[in-house]
């Protein structure tokens, strides 16, 4: 893979460390669950660039297509770590599922699509009144859009018709067939919708700035027992974020991602570099809490309680500190530190 | 006019298997009663099924009324060796089903006709309304006979029609068949398989003895019609014919294999 000169240097030095380590101690096995989404690219980059191995972890990935199943697997201890959206974990937490949120993966990246002739008229969320909209409930975009409509003063139950679909794909087909006026989809379907001649009414970050999406969750017991494993994990994730941030690494990034989700490279490129998808390892606690409030407002959650207890921001912090200690000069880590303060404290 | 001609018919059931019927030639005239007799497995049912159109000859042709025929038809009523009633229809419905194939009459009329036919073979009352599985073997066989009568075709093909009934009932059914046959102007052509030599002699114009798929001999029965059972049994030819037939069957004992 094409790596920059500095990267390669760093690589070799840390690799030596690792091999020294492995002689004493084998790599720690970690089971990680993910959804088939370009939004989970930090995993793929960290794996592809060998950051997990550097951190002394032997990561095996398991794919899920349903958030609920993944969250259950984490709660049951079959997975150590997983990323399954934001709304679903918050909902499952309310139902009694046990896990810890300790990192971030992606944000934004969803949009409302409609036929070109309808798109313009729907720019204002208030105009959804009397419309029929297809959505997949509990998708991040679904939550953000609903709260936008709610904030615009519409009653979600009576002022418009919301119909449930099984997948983003079905939503596009339904919009295209004119069965519904608009639909809520996410990457890579936003792109797909455009190709099919639909127009983007709005990206969800236009409704809610910097909203979070995939959060990294962990099995509670394991998290408490072996914090060092999780710190190591987050180190790798932060390195991946750094690698992704450098557009020079585009080729390598695409190769890393494609190894996991075999889609058109063009789509990956658009998703990762076109700016409507945020990829950050920061847990972004404040945004999670804000997101949760929205879920309460639109009736997805019953109770406006404080879930700070299951959000861990220390592991991420330790990881960031470790990295910074290794590379005190790196401006990237400094930026992240500032971001951490802003988003979590 | 309802003639049957076996024109050099051969039948073998599989490519490897023995030929069940070999160069079988037989001309059956209209209004004639013919019996097939012979040892078990000699090809009697096979020959009858060819006439019914249920078996297509491997070689040769079946000709019915001067037409080469390879399928069954309403012109030939059949009583099978295993009765073959439809188990999901009551006995009455089995007969009714055949009647409907023949007559386009109101249901009431046909129902009465069916009941009458069953009465005649001794299946009456509640036994008409039950399923075939609820009556004895001999009773089922009688329902099958009634069904054939119901179809009233010009040709009757019967495979051991009276094998499962006692001697008294058997004689009654024989008389019933002959009555029916004699009454009609256009007499039916009847081909039957039987194991009972006396029955063959009493009923038939000619008795065909089969042996390993071939015709061993054809014996014409000289007694005049309207036959009387007692009378012909006392005739001098009777015993001769009977012994001749017995010997013809006996040629090789038991299925022709030992």
């Amino acid at each position, binding site marked *: 893979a094409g790596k920059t000169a500095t990267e390669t240097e760093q690589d070799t030095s840390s690799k030596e460390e690792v091999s020294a380590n492995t002689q004493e101690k084998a790599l720690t096995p970690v089971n990680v669950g993910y959804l088939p989404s370009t939004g989970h690219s930090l995993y793929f980059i960290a794996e592809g660039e060998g950051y997990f191995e550097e951190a002394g972890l032997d990561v095996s990935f398991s794919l899920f297509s349903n958030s609920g199943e993944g969250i259950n697997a984490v709660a049951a201890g079959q997975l150590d770590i997983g990323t399954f959206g934001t709304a679903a974990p918050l909902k499952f937490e309310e139902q009694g599922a046990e896990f810890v949120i300790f990192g971030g993966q992606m944000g934004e990246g969803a949009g409302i699509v409609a036929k070109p002739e309808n798109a313009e008229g729907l720019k204002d969320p208030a105009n959804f009144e009397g419309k029929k909209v297809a959505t997949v409930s509990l998708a991040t975009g679904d939550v953000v859009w609903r709260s936008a409509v709610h904030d615009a003063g519409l009653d979600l139950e009576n002022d418009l018709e919301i119909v449930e679909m099984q997948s983003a794909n079905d939503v596009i087909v339904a919009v295209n067939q004119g069965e519904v006026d608009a639909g809520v989809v996410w990457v890579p379907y936003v792109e797909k919708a455009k190709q099919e001649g639909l127009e983007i009414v709005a990206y969800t970050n236009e409704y809610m700035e910097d909203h979070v999406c995939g959060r990294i969750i962990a099995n509670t017991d394991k998290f408490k027992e072996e914090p060092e494993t999780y710190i190591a994990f987050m180190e790798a994730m932060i390195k991946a974020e750094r690698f992704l941030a450098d557009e020079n690494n585009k080729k390598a990034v695409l190769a890393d991602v494609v190894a996991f989700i075999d889609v058109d490279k063009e789509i990956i490129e658009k998703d990762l570099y076109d700016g409507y998808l945020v990829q950050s390892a920061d847990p972004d606690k404040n945004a999670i809490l804000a997101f949760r409030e929205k879920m309460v407002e639109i009736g997805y959650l019953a109770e406006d309680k404080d879930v700070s207890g299951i959000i861990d921001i220390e592991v991420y912090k330790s990881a960031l500190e470790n990295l910074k200690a290794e590379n005190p000069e790196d401006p990237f880590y400094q930026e992240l530190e500032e971001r951490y303060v802003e988003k979590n404290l | 006019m309802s003639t049957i001609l076996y024109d050099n018919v051969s039948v073998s059931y599989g490519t490897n298997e023995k030929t069940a019927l070999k160069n079988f030639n037989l001309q059956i005239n209209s209004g004639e009663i013919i019996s097939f007799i012979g040892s078990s497995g000699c090809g009697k049912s096979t020959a009858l099924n060819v006439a019914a*159109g249920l078996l297509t000859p491997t070689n040769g042709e079946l000709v019915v009324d001067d037409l080469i025929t390879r399928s069954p038809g309403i012109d030939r009523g059949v009583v099978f060796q295993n009765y073959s009633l*439809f188990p999901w229809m009551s006995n009455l419905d089995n007969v009714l089903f055949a009647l409907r194939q023949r007559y386009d009459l109101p249901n009431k009329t046909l129902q009465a006709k069916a009941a009458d036919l069953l009465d005649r073979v001794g299946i009456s009352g509640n036994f008409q309304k039950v399923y075939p599985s609820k009556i004895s073997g001999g009773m089922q066989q009688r329902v099958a006979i009634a069904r054939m009568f119901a179809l009233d075709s010009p040709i009757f093909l019967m495979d051991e029609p009276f094998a499962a009934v006692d001697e008294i009932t058997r004689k009654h059914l024989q008389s019933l068949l002959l009555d029916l046959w004699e009454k009609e102007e256009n007499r039916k052509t009847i081909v039957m398989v039987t194991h009972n030599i006396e029955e063959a002699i009493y009923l038939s114009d000619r008795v065909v003895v089969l042996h390993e798929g071939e015709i061993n001999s054809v014996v014409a029965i000289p007694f005049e019609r309207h036959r009387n059972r007692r009378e012909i049994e006392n005739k001098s030819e009777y015993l001769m014919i009977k012994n001749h037939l017995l010997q013809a069957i006996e040629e090789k004992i038991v299925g022709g294999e030992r």
Partner: protein
Amino acid sequence: MATNRFGWATGFIYPTPEAVISQFTQDGKELFHHLVSSVGLLASGYSLAVLFGISLGTLSAWYRRLGRIMNPASSVLAPIPPIILIPYAIALLPSFRASSIFIIFIGAFWPIFVATLNGVAGIDRRYMDSARTLGVSTFTLFRKIIFPAALSSIFTGLTIGMTLSFILLTSAEMIGANAGVGFYIKLATDFGNYTKVVTGIIFIGIFVTFVMILLRRLEKHFLRWQR
């Protein structure tokens, strides 16, 4: 919450009986409303499946040529997960409702088709011979001989098809619906509310039991000649 390696950490997926009962009393009315919607869907999809499954199954067993087309076709088409067919259904059928019905239909169709085909192909040839000597028309043959003779096998297909149509209710009712027991269950699953999931399952289970008893009665009635 007790945690052990058998996964009881996920205690929330095992609701207590009390929770289920209280959920049921709470949602009772709503559930009946959902049921009405589901029954309409099931009835349409299932009866279409019965119609086409039995007739195509019979014809495929009877006319060799059709069988030669249907056999490979069924091998390729039957294993397609109905969920994958959803976008095509939405695109090609005039309404969401029609798509939902189609999903139920396709699920119930294959079992009925296969069972009918096997049933007809396995009919004792003595009955066929018997019927042929009676000179019956093809229509009468199908109605009075083939159908009753294959009925036992057809009922196997009807039972399995019925089960499948219920299984697919959750998928079918996620096509632009906003009512139905499947909708209720699927939404509860997505929301991790397993008390509702179990309540919905038990509710539909009770309903299915009634339908199955009905089907078995029907079977007993039509196959009374077998006992």
